[in-house]
Every structure is written in C-alpha cells, then in structure tokens.
C-alpha cells in the first residue's frame, strides 16, 4: 500500500469484516507500531478521532457535555487552543442534549457526541471508524451529511467502514483492504466488479442511478 493523503482529501478504507481495516487505522493513528513500512505524519498535525461508539462503555456516568469537555481537556493538555464546547455541541445539533447521559442517548446522538469531541481540537485530519455502524437510515444520512460538510470546509477525512455504498458516494479515494493486501487509488478506478471480486471474493457490480453509485451483488454470484 502506498497512499499519500493531502490536505482536503477524502479517503475511504473499505473491506470485509476481519480484513484488517481497524489494524491499518490503529497503525495510522500511531496506536500500533507497524511491522513493515513507514507512516510519515506531518508534525503538529491536529487529528480528530471518532471511535466506534460500541467500543465505549456506557457504565461511565458521563453526559454528552462531559465527553466533549474530555476532548477539550485532552487538547488543552497537548498545548493546542481547543474550540468552545458549546459551539461544537451546537454544530452537531446537540445543544439541547448536553446534560443527557451518554448511556441514554440513541446511537445517532452518541455518534454526534463523539464527532463533537473530535471537532473540539479543530482537526485538520478527521478519522472516523465505522461511524454509521448500526444506525438507522436517517441517522446515517445525518452523520454523513455532517462529515461531508466538514470535508467541504477543507478538512481531510479518513473513513473506515465495511459498507461499500457508504464510501462509493462520499470518498474520492479508496483503500480496499482484503486477503492480506491493500489496494489504493481513486474511487473511479477501484469501484469495478473485478477489483471488488478480488477483495470480497463474491460477484459484485456497480450501478449508477441518479448520479449515485450503488454496489449490488451480481445475479450470477
């Protein structure tokens, strides 16, 4: 894999379950050390990370505002002036739910809280791990609209997901992870039946409908 992520790029890391997407992500984040190769990162790059909400424990007695403040304080301890908490909550549409316990929020609202926490560092690069996993359709659309808006504002986005249709219409570049290999390139180059067959091991085809790309199983697969 050889990927260069420039300012304002939108990269989708996609592949089947267990392909190694999260491992690749943790390597990019510096949580895991890579066994081969190197990851160069611009010094002092402000990174916002949105984890899978299911990886976080509901037992913690924290409100939405507490969690956003957590990002604020971590940012403050890392000598970077953080964004205003209320402004960020307002931005993700949670201004009225700041005092609600995290455990009592819906999946979509939890995802917004985590997005707000990431935004509090005013990130140049925003990394999202399965942000729409388990969400209903309206929540998925709302979250992706927020991410698209952040991208339009000039932020680089890395979106990790197993949902092909999610990246097919949002990310300009793709990294297909599967079978121990990573293939990276532009979305238009990689979204082809043959490429996807190699990664997913099943027949897929890409349709276009009203300007949107849709990946569906081939009838003969």
């Amino acid at each position, binding site marked *: 894999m050889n990927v260069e992520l420039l300012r304002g790029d939108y990269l989708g890391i996609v592949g089947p379950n267990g392909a190694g997407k999260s491992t690749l992500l943790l390597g990019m984040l*510096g949580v895991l050390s890579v066994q081969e190769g190197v990851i160069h990162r611009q010094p002092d790059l402000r990174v916002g990370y949105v984890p899978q909400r299911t990886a976080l424990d509901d*037992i*913690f*007695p924290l409100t939405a505002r507490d969690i956003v403040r*957590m990002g604020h304080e*971590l940012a403050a*301890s*890392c000598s970077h002036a953080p964004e205003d908490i209320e402004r960020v909550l307002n931005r993700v549409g949670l201004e009225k739910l700041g005092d609600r316990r995290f455990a009592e929020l819906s999946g979509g609202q939890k995802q917004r809280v985590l997005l707000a926490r990431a935004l509090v560092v005013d990130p140049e690069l925003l*990394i999202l791990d399965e942000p729409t996993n388990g969400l209903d359709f309206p929540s998925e659309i709302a979250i992706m609209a927020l991410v698209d808006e952040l991208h339009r504002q000039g932020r680089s986005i890395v979106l990790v997901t197993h949902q092909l249709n999610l990246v097919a219409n949002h990310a300009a570049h793709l990294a297909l992870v599967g079978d121990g290999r990573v293939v990276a390139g532009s979305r238009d180059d990689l979204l082809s039946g043959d490429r996807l067959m190699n990664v997913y091991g099943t027949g897929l085809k890409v349709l276009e409908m009203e300007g949107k790309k849709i990946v569906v199983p081939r009838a003969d697969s």
Partner: protein
Amino acid sequence: MKTCVLLALLLLVPAAVQGEEDPLAALEQQIESGESRGDHEHGHPHHLAPPGAEEVPTFVHERPVPHEHRHLPAQRHSWLEAFSFEFMQRATVAGLLAGTICTWLGLFVVLRRLVFVAIALAQVASAGIALGVLLGFQPTALGMLSAVAASIASGSKRLRGRLPGEAHMGLFYLGAGALAILFLARSGTGEAEQLEMLNGNLIVVRETQLWTLGLAALGIGLLHISGFRQLVAISFDPVSGIVAGVRVWAWDALFFLALGLGIGVSIQSCGLLLVFGYVVIPASAGLLTGFRLPGVLAVAMGVQALATVAGLWVAYEGDLPGGPCIVTVMLICLVVIRLAASFRTR
C-alpha cells in the same frame, strides 16, 4: 470536593498519629485504669469497669475490652462514648484513610471492570504479609511490594499467553490464597493470623501503619488533583487519548502502581474482606445514584465514611469484628441507594 478530601487528610493524619506507640498496650492501660479519654461532652471521665471487675470479654476476638460494663445504662451517655477511646479513634482514622484510598481507586476499578483484578491483588498483598509474618520481616512492606508486582504482572500480555484475563487473575488469586495459608500455617500462629487477615483488625492499628496510610491517602489526593480527569479520559477511551498525544501507558502504569500500593497499604490494617469491600461497594453505590462523576465520587466517599464510623460503633456495641460490620453497613447503604434510585425513576 478536592479541597474537602485534602483538608480531611490533613486533619486526619496528625490526629491519627498522636498517642502511644503500641495501641494494644494503650488499650490495656485504659482498661486497667478504668478511664476513658476525651469525654468532653460530660466533663468527666467515664468509668468503664467498676472496681473489682475480673472478667474481661473481648471486642474483637482476642482484644480485651470490658464489654458487659459498656452496656450498663448509667454509663452509656451517647454514641460518641465509643469514640472517646484512643483505640477506637485510631481504628476510625485508619478506616477512613483506607476507605478514602480504596474508594477512589475502586471507582476506576469498577468503571474499568477490574473487580477481579482488585480481589486478586488484595489476596496477593495478603500473601506478602503472610510471608512477612513467617519471616518476621516487614509484613506491610512485603504486602505492598507483592501487590505492586502483581499489579504490574496483571497487565502483562506476555505472561498471560493465550489465557483470558479473568483466568489469569484467577490463577493469581488461587496461588496467592494457597501461599498465604501455607505461610501462615508455618508461622506458628497461623489460625489466629489468618482470621485477623480476613476480618481485619482496625483496633490494633499501629502508629507506623497510620503514617503509611496517611501518606498513601495524601498520594491519592495528589493524584486526584493532578490526574483525575486524564485518568477518566483514558479509562473511557484510551485510543483517543493516544491520538490526542497523552501518554496513556504512563497514566495506566501510574494507576496500576497506585492500585497495588493502595491495596497493599490497606490490607494489613483492614484485612482482605474490608479492603475488597471498600474497593467495590462505595463506588457501586455511587454509580447506582445515576449522578455525574463528581456526584458519584462524593456519594462513594460519603458511604465509606458513614459505614466506617457506623460499622465501628456497631462493632463496639455488639462485641463484633469491625471489618464485617463496616462491610455490612456499606451494603445496607448500597441497598438504600438502590431503592431510592428506583423510586426516583418511577
């Protein structure tokens, strides 16, 4: 909240270390003279034992306290009477200090789902103390060292191999439990020591133990001021902590070091049962309230403080061992909070 904890520590530690070197000797001296100390409420000393009293029943098994005379109605002026004795004051201060240490650590133990780690560490600390008893060499220090070593080893994936974490801790617990019994069996006073270790023996806390507990509580107070929020953040989401540039491994190491030290320091004064009770029950009671984290911590501290004082009073009045009484009062508090929380949500 932080200020209150520190003020309490600063007030409690000097109060704790006043008095004789040997609490048991002091206790016997008080009983022989038939006087209690510090009965400011009535302006004169109580007479615990009338002249000529020969039989001296026990407060906690082997501790000589004139129990039947405490129950003479004419001598029971108030519940504060129990705390006019120096041994009760020492026990209360030791309980409050150990309770503060273990409750603070317990909040993270419960939130991070490390309850089994905590009981295993407490058992390892007991084994270290038992080794000290056997060798006649620094039981408290050996208890602390054992708990710290086990705390570090508990996080070692290399040591764990393919075993799940619970099984890994189970092995620690079993090994330490067996060793503690074997060490004590060879020490000559095995049965009594073992019972003491399980029940705790707050009433014979020594001055050095109080100092050690005080210093440990001060350390926890400093950790609270300097790192409570960071510890919460990395406990909730360690990956985001790393991404933000926080040295998560260092905070984790500091927490496990504090856990090993806190449990190791507390175990000889309080015993296995009470230390485990202080770690698990107050934090659980706090979480049942549904409050935010500062409220949870405040309730947990309140529960341990109330249970320490009330439990020791019950032990004094009922001629019962202190540790189990405190644990029982903590559990009663937890049940009351649970009921109140369920009424509130209806």
